């Protein structure tokens, strides 16, 4: 029942009326100027105006809005803060955007059991701030954590710099309440982290809003470590920084973060308001963050220093206090903002390769960027092998945009060729949907469609995402894929 053409004025007016009766007219946006900001998430290459934006305030309202959309024959797209970078919240097919930002309450905090129950619109960093006085924090820390919502993090299985030690969102979600695409409300998982049967919570986290709309999330909280030590290690080149990363991983340590900033990024950062005093002639900077018990970190940091020397580090600085630690992180966290000075647009790529292949892959990626005449810089989660080649460009220049796209595809092909994957934390969305065939064959994608179809059988929830379009068409037409004989109970 996906929409196939422009929505008639009458149908639109009827939907506005029915949805307004549920959420209030002030929470139903329909003017082009209001809709504009909902036309894309952080991937701004191909924005599409939604036909309507609805901001429900409760699970019950989400359920009723979904039913209203279905009754009107309209698809819908769940949305958090819109900070995603793969187009997961793009409103394709004249979809109605259902934004969860009004559902922003921390419903409960259970310090004894280290759990919190939150609505999807709670901003990631706000949860850590709220539980900080209890010496707890919410571990997933995507770079957008000051703005992104936990509902969006669940959709994308968001990671961040500290994923290396603490894992992605999936490691921290134990139960969810969600509105399925038929409007029904279901609860999956349990607060204790176990539910008999299939791990449906695990399947939903990272499903990019294509299984339904998550309306309540029970998350694990983590104790703030007793001690944190941060080192800034300066190298002549990226391969040497990667050498140290490999040495640390092999040594048995599990650092909280291992983040590399390359020379091109250093130059951009130092020319910006995020300047951190990094030497402009450095080839790469590696941030090593260790956390844990106070008694174990001095020896670990001593070992890091020794390994850094062997890897050819030019300089190792250890943060003396929290202020200096923040200073060290400025270059890393300010990188994307700094790149705003280089060009009007920034394409933040995201791919993962085996850690041991980082040096050669980074070299090849720079070569690709140079060959296409692009402004390329690299900031990456080296401990996870998670690359973020960033291309600064101007999308008004169609010819340059074509080069950006072509170079991006070549980079992804390279990563897959060495055993890597298309995305480590941004998701597939529309951005990489048509590249899925680089990694998966038809049977693999078909299995994914079987999973999606169990939740979203007619494809009304967030259409056109993750699976290449030709397959999604088959999904909407069971006879085309021979599933019509499959008994669905």
């Amino acid at each position, binding site marked *: 029942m996906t929409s196939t053409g422009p929505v008639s004025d009458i149908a639109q007016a009827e939907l506005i009326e029915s949805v307004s009766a549920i959420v209030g007219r002030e929470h139903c946006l329909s003017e082009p100027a209001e809709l504009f900001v909902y036309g894309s998430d952080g991937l701004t290459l191909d924005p599409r105006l939604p036909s309507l934006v609805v901001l429900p305030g409760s699970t019950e309202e989400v359920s009723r809005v979904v039913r209203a959309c279905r009754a009107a024959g309209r698809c819908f797209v769940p949305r958090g803060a819109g900070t995603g970078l793969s187009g997961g919240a793009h409103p394709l097919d004249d979809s109605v955007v259902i934004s969860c930002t009004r559902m922003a309450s921390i419903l409960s905090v259970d310090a004894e059991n280290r759990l919190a129950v939150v609505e999807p619109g709670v901003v990631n960093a706000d949860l850590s701030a709220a539980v900080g006085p209890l010496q707890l924090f919410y571990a997933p820390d995507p770079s957008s954590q000051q703005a992104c919502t936990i509902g969006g993090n669940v959709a994308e299985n968001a990671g961040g710099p500290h994923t290396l030690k603490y894992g992605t969102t999936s490691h921290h979600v134990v139960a969810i309440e969600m509105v399925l695409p038929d409007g029904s409300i279901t609860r999956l998982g349990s607060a204790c982290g176990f539910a008999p049967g299939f791990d449906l919570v695990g399947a939903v986290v990272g499903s990019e809003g294509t299984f339904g709309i998550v309306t309540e999330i029970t998350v694990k909280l983590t104790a703030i470590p007793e001690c944190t030590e941060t080192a800034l290690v300066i190298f002549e080149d990226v391969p040497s920084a990667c050498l140290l990363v490999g040495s640390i991983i092999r040594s048995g340590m599990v650092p909280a973060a291992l983040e590399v900033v390359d020379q091109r990024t250093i130059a951009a950062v130092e020319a910006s308001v995020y300047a951190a005093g990094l030497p402009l002639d450095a080839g790469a900077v590696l941030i090593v963050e260790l956390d844990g*018990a106070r008694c174990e970190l001095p020896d670990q940091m001593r070992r890091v220093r020794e390994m850094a020397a062997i890897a050819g580090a030019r300089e190792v600085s250890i943060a003396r206090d929290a202020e200096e630690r923040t200073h060290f992180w400025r270059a890393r966290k300010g990188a994307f903002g700094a790149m705003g000075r280089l060009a009007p647009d920034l394409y933040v790529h995201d791919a993962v390769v085996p850690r041991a292949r980082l040096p050669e892959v980074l070299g090849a990626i720079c070569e690709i960027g140079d060959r296409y005449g692009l402004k390329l810089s690299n900031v990456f989660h080296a401990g996870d092998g998670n690359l973020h080649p960033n291309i600064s460009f101007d999308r008004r220049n169609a010819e340059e945009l074509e080069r950006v796209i072509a170079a991006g595809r070549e980079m992804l092909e390279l990563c897959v060729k060495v055993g890597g994957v298309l995305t480590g934390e941004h998701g597939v969305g529309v951005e990489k949907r048509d590249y899925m065939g680089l990694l998966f*064959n038809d049977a693999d994608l078909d299995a994914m469609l079987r999973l999606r179809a169990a939740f979203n059988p007619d494809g009304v929830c967030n259409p056109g995402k993750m699976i290449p379009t030709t397959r999604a068409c088959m999904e909407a037409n069971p006879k085309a894929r021979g599933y019509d004989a499959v008994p669905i109970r």
Partner: protein
Amino acid sequence: MTGSDEPSAASELSSLSGSGFERLGPSGLPAGGSISHRLEPESGEAIAESLKILQAHEEPVLVAGGMTKLESMNPVRDTRILLSCRGLSGIDELDAEDGVVRARSGTPLAEMAAAADRAGWLLPLDPPGEGGTLGGALATGMCGPRRRGFGAVRECVLGLETVLGSGERTRCGARVVKNVTGYDMAKLYVGSFGTLAVIEGAWLRLQPKPRSTRSLALSPSRGDEPFALALEAARRTSARAVALVSADLASSEPGLGPTPELDARWKLMVEFSGDEAVTREDAEWLGGRGPSVPLGPEAIDALGGLQASKEERTLRARIHLLPSALRIVCERLQQAGLRLVVYPEPAVIYAFFEPEAGADPSWLPAKLAVIEEVTARLAAPWVVESLPAWGYAAHDVFMGGFATPLMETLKGRFDPGRILNRGCLIGVL
């Protein structure tokens, strides 16, 4: 092959190259089953072709690895053929640089652990009992005593190769340690007891080998609240295994090592691992909380043995709950005569009962009713891990669970003929 119980698929399976199809002799029958034949395919292709034949003949199979956890699922229904994954064995690759390993489903876990150890890494899987295979560990998702340090089974799975019930070979995930490319299919398969797909092979993430390990047993002081102490121990930086064992159980299991005070109600067993400085500090902290004795790692291993005990008369149940509810639940279960092993975080209680020889069979529903009553109040999910053989006919081992419509739909989509481990998970799956 001859005989009236011959599956109609037998001739096709016999002629299928590499299927390893054979009739079992009387000694080869898995306990409690109606299994008369075995498939032991040598390759993923052979599994896929076998499943296509079985689906066409509507012939269900019992999918198994080391057959060490059959008592922890419902007996399969209408099933005559065992599909053993033991024929798919071997480590394809162990990348010591990256700390990842790829192995075939039937690879013994002991072989994988030894290989990881030789390469300077640790295999973070310790399903209860011995003789398990990689595929079995992933299919059951069951954890042993080191769950606190190793994490859940699903957390070390990077990628899977599977054969769906419908016979398609598929792959999900990859060898890298971070990945959100496509749906997280591995989460769906791990712990599904082989009801959706046959696991053919897997990429796993290894853990760093700790530089130091210290294990000790402690008798909580009389003024100390044992559950609070156990939870505090579990939240120490280097805690890898923390368990409270009720005194009646501790005294009857010599494998659990010495007990500092024999008249204490609980025995706290702890294993710390990590850097030397932190394990020393944590062990000293714990040693200051009561009389303690050092333990060998085998005592911690013995906890896993308890979780896999197969005494014919024994009931073993596993209850998942919040740490804050441990005390009240344990008190009630002990009042009912159950012996306990308690893991404080993630909070799990293993409850055991072994009746006197010749006891009236009514003991079983009575004990199950106690567990049901105490867990229902807390909405705590629980499963039966082992029953006397006569108990399976009357009780679903996933008593604290229910199959949602979503689960039933998934079963139909991945295993449309419902031939994989029919009925073993929550009765209908």
